[in-house]
């Protein structure tokens, strides 16, 4: 996993704590919210997006190098803080992308603060109680196993993280798991108060799901699609929950098309 020289480490001070982020590129501002297991730096998809857009990849409050709001107890708290972070950027509106748990945060942010969004992209996002199936509970697995379950095949996991993930990666996972548990232990990765409110959200939304996502069932994608008035669903074949690591070029194409339609 290489970190491109394009990216610059920055931080933004909120009264609730400093938020660290990576920034690269020029053009319309795109903000990416990471998975529950945190950001491990710039990935290939980020590099691709940074060729066309000004890309901002924050460590969500409590994750990575961002200060931990010890008082936060709910995913909604994190969404509000991410909204404050976006408000402090020097741009009135952004294109927001959420990966996995970051998609749940993005959806909560969108229903509260849609005026700051030009577009929304949710990729394998939980947040809704699945009509069918269950959201995979990371607390009942070793984290290594959980991340492995997020790929269609183990080879991709090894390619991305190695046979045994490095201590640095495991430290990021440890730190992230705790923050995830602090705000999302129960109910686990859904909020029954989110689904009804999605109906009021007019923001154009792209839903991208892996056809073989073992973490967030496809039924959740269908529920988002049904509730969000301006949404489209694209299901990638032979893709799991971490489809942005499995198919960065395909995902970049889908995202860019969506963003370009909403500029």
């Amino acid at each position: 996993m290489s970190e491109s020289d394009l990216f610059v480490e920055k931080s933004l001070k909120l009264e609730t704590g400093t938020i660290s982020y990576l920034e690269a590129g020029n053009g319309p501002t795109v903000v990416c919210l990471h998975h529950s297991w945190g950001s491990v730096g710039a990935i290939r998809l980020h590099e691709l997006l940074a060729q066309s857009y000004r890309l901002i990849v924050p460590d969500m409050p409590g994750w990575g190098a961002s200060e931990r709001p010890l008082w936060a107890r709910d995913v909604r708290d994190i969404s509000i803080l991410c909204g404050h972070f976006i408000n402090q950027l020097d741009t009135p509106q952004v294109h927001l992308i959420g990966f996995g748990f970051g998609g749940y945060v993005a959806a909560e942010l969108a229903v509260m603060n849609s005026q700051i969004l030009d577009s929304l992209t949710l990729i394998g996002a939980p947040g809704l109680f699945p009509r069918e199936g269950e959201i995979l509970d990371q607390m009942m697995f070793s984290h290594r196993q959980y991340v492995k379950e997020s790929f269609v095949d183990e080879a991709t996991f090894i390619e991305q993280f190695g046979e045994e993930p490095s201590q640095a990666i495991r430290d990021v996972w440890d730190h992230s798991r705790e923050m995830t548990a602090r705000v999302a232990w129960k109910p686990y990765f859904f909020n029954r108060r989110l689904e009804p409110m999605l109906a009021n959200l007019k923001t154009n939304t792209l839903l991208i799901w892996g056809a073989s996502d073992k973490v967030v069932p496809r039924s959740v994608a269908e529920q988002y699609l049904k509730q969000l008035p301006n949404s489209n669903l694209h299901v990638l074949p032979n893709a799991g929950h971490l489809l942005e690591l499995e198919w960065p070029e395909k995902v970049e194409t889908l995202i860019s098309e969506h963003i370009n339609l909403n500029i």
Partner: protein
Amino acid sequence: MFVGYFTERPYQDPNSGYFGATGRSITDLTMSNASYNPKLGAHLYNRYLDEKIFAEEMGFDGLMLNEHHSTPFCMGGVMNLEAAILARITKRAKIVLLGNILPIWDDPLFLAEELAEIDMISRGRLVTGWVRGTGRESVAHNAVAPYNWERFQEAHDFIIDAWTRPGPFRWEGEHYQFRYVNPWSRPYQDPHPPIWIPGVMSRNTVAWAARQRYPYVMLATELEPTKQSYEYYTEVAKEEGYETGTQHRGYLFKVHVDETEKLADEAGRKFVQGPSNPFLEGNQGTVRPFIQNLPGLTQRNNLLPTIKSFAAAASRGRADQHKEAKEEEKKPVEPPKPRDTYIDQTEKYSIISGTPDTVIPRVRHVLETLRPGSIFFWDGDGAMSHEDSMRSLRLMGQEVIPAVREMAKELDLKSPFEVDPKTNKPVEDISSLEESATTASLAD
């Protein structure tokens, strides 16, 4: 000296496939209750209550219960119910709960009421103890792991208030909110039952117990790390401006007494058989480290010297830190599976099993090494039968307990019922046991 009796109350069903290595998974929190037989459960619950009555008859000062959930190795999921029954069917012995898992209670007012009722029904024989619980309990009752310590402390403060502060009052805490606190039951003991804190590995908890001057009961940990953990308690006590004594130290250890050395060997080996108990060293039960060691449950760098014991560390999902701790000592890491775990444990005093003649000197060694004011004999566990337990209890009553009392006098080991751990002054009324028995008989 206070002498108590304890067993985990294992769900002993050799037909379940969860009784040793049968090929079925015996990893903690993977076993399905589809195998549970309530008729066998009925038999076992009554057996363990009967054994407690006999333990009282044999002269034990305390009957200790504990609590675990969703597992065959301990049937005490609702320990307070057993305690309430003991409150009524026993007359003299203290009922020692070590302990209620505070962070998993969403309604600690309910717990305050239950404990007060037990204290009243027993006419003041309750010793209450509170624990944080390992990860398995947070999973079993879905308590948010990172808030375990916060919830423990707030529930403690709340229960003390509920017991001692005239109601009604309002409680608006971080984790608990009550608009009307006015339980129509208050503890029999004034101001409330003694509180003892059991534990194995958390420095936070030891320090906290020392600051509250609550006796700390080490649960079947190895002698040297136990001694070091007591020393840590003493360090904190010094910072708080008081000296510790035997009244602040409790110790639970495995003791079985039998009629012959042969019988003692056969029964003693059963400690490491039976339902898969990861907390019984040498037993075939294992834990899933990621469950025991949930995110944020305990601080990785805030562990007691007991981390150096592989069994204690592994049962808490801390095998990695055990390795680190041993490496720091520049000693070879202990092998996780000893050649003969029973022999290994008898050699290091983790299990003491024999006739009274061989058990008594070994118990003396423990008392001399640790100088506890309260001890608990952990017996009748694993695959031990009712008959094994009853033989042992009888011999403990006839020979071991009287010998231990003599040793305690000689070694000046005073329990919290002789020297008040809050003040370090002699307890004025040390005949409380006899008094409560008298009151009970008058009322009955």
